[in-house]
């Protein structure tokens, strides 16, 4: 069971998407786990053959517990018989070392059955069945359950009825708030924060954006969040102490920046899924990824790697919010970057006072790992990149 955030200590396995004997490749979705943040898709980190599973759907499992075994192709070829589940459970039940959080080699497995999504009302509907139903415009409540009383993928696929208003499951708002509370309370307890801020003249970026969008059709236009995210990711390259994790008394710098993006859930709540290897994507790709992330935060389908592999977080308040935010670091990360709204402000340009578009950016840093000077130098780097949007 991978750790999907500082606020998670256990998850409930709801569905296996692969069966023992199936071939799996790195990146395949192998199971679905229900957490306080909703249903999360668990990915495999290795290639191999799914061998034995030790956790049945419906079981709540602490982070670090082995869910199943994957054999490498060589091992599988040598095996003379498949390991029956009960024997596998005994092998795997022996307590092992806790798996690392970010990017740990968790091998979730379980042959799927599905678990009830909506709070106990009506037939049990699996998260993947809900997703397929939504794609097809079917209300899963219209679909008759299978012999086990559960509406799964098979039942949706067989359903002949017409489309109705799609049901969109969302994680329970109270649960999400509790998860946020746990993470933020831990951050406050454990991380000595420092804050450095600067006001950035965003006029060159917004002028560039206006020119870009004027020559693009609607569906390819950019929001300022995309070039902002790119500039942040590129700027982090020089500042190891702002990008990584602090655990067990030690700082581990990450070799790449996976920027977590704070996305608000309508009606309350917040999630920070990461865009992996953020700096390698151009502005268009980042815009698409942001759009996709927002959609999946709201309707489900976030992946475990997105929730567990963030190395730093960006929280961009957006329009009609506030000028400045002093954000709280999301453990075990060591920094967070907060951007306020864009506002009209008189600034000095070329010796004259002119009306410009200003945005405050604040770096929150873990003082066990870096100092205010590091944050300040990062802000200078970011300011410099944002001043030349054509060539950040």
């Amino acid at each position: 069971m991978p750790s999907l955030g500082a606020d998670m200590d256990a998850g409930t396995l709801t569905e296996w998407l692969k069966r023992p004997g199936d071939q799996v490749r790195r990146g395949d979705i192998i199971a679905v786990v229900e957490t306080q943040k909703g249903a999360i898709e668990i990915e495999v980190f290795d290639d191999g053959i799914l061998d034995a599973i030790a956790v049945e759907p419906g079981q709540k499992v602490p982070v670090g517990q082995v869910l199943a075994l994957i054999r490498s192709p060589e091992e599988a070829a040598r095996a003379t018989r498949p390991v029956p589940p009960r024997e596998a459970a005994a092998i795997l039940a022996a307590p092992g070392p806790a798996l690392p959080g970010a990017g740990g080699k968790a091998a979730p497995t379980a042959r799927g059955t599905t678990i009830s999504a909506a709070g106990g009302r009506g037939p049990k509907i699996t998260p993947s069945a809900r997703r397929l139903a939504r794609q097809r415009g079917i209300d899963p409540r219209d679909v008759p359950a299978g012999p086990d009383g559960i509406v799964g993928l098979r039942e949706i696929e067989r359903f002949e009825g017409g489309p109705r208003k799609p049901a969109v499951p969302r994680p329970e708002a109270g649960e999400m708030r509790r998860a946020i509370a746990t993470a933020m309370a831990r951050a406050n307890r454990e991380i000595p924060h420092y804050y450095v801020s600067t006001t950035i003249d965003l006029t060159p970026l917004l002028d560039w954006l206006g020119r870009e969008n004027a020559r693009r059709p609607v569906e390819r236009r950019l929001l300022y969040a995309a070039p902002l995210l790119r500039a942040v990711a590129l700027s982090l390259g020089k500042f190891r102490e702002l990008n990584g994790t602090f655990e067990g008394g030690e700082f581990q710098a990450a070799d790449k920046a996976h920027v977590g993006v704070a996305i608000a859930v309508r009606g309350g709540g917040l999630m920070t899924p990461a865009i992996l290897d953020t700096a390698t994507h151009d502005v268009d790709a980042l815009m698409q990824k942001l759009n996709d992330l927002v959609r999946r935060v709201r309707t489900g389908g976030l992946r475990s790697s997105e929730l567990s592999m963030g190395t730093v977080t960006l929280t961009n308040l957006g329009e009609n919010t506030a000028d400045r935010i002093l954000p709280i670091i999301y453990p075990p990360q060591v920094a967070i970057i907060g951007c306020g709204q864009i506002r009209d402000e008189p600034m000095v340009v070329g010796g004259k006072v002119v009306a410009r578009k200003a945005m405050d950016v604040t770096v929150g840093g873990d003082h066990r790992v870096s100092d205010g000077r590091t944050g300040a130098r990062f802000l200078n780097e970011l300011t410099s990149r944002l001043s030349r949007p054509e060539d950040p």
Partner: protein
Amino acid sequence: MTDRDYARLVRETLFAVAPDLDGMEIDPDETFREQFEIDSMDFLNFVTGLSKATGRDIPEADYPRLETLNGCVAYLSGETG
């Protein structure tokens, strides 16, 4: 298309962008942002949806006219002012 048709198109496009709002009443003169916490990402997707449905390119300069249901209907039906 009549104003009623445009209003229905606007509703459908909005609910396609934000399915969690589906079925809710829309105050035709209040902005979508105020009523439903529609953010700029939602709004851009909404304008993209309208553009695709009507086959019209919608320049950024026109976005402020599309912030309410009535504003959208007036814009799409070609009313001036």
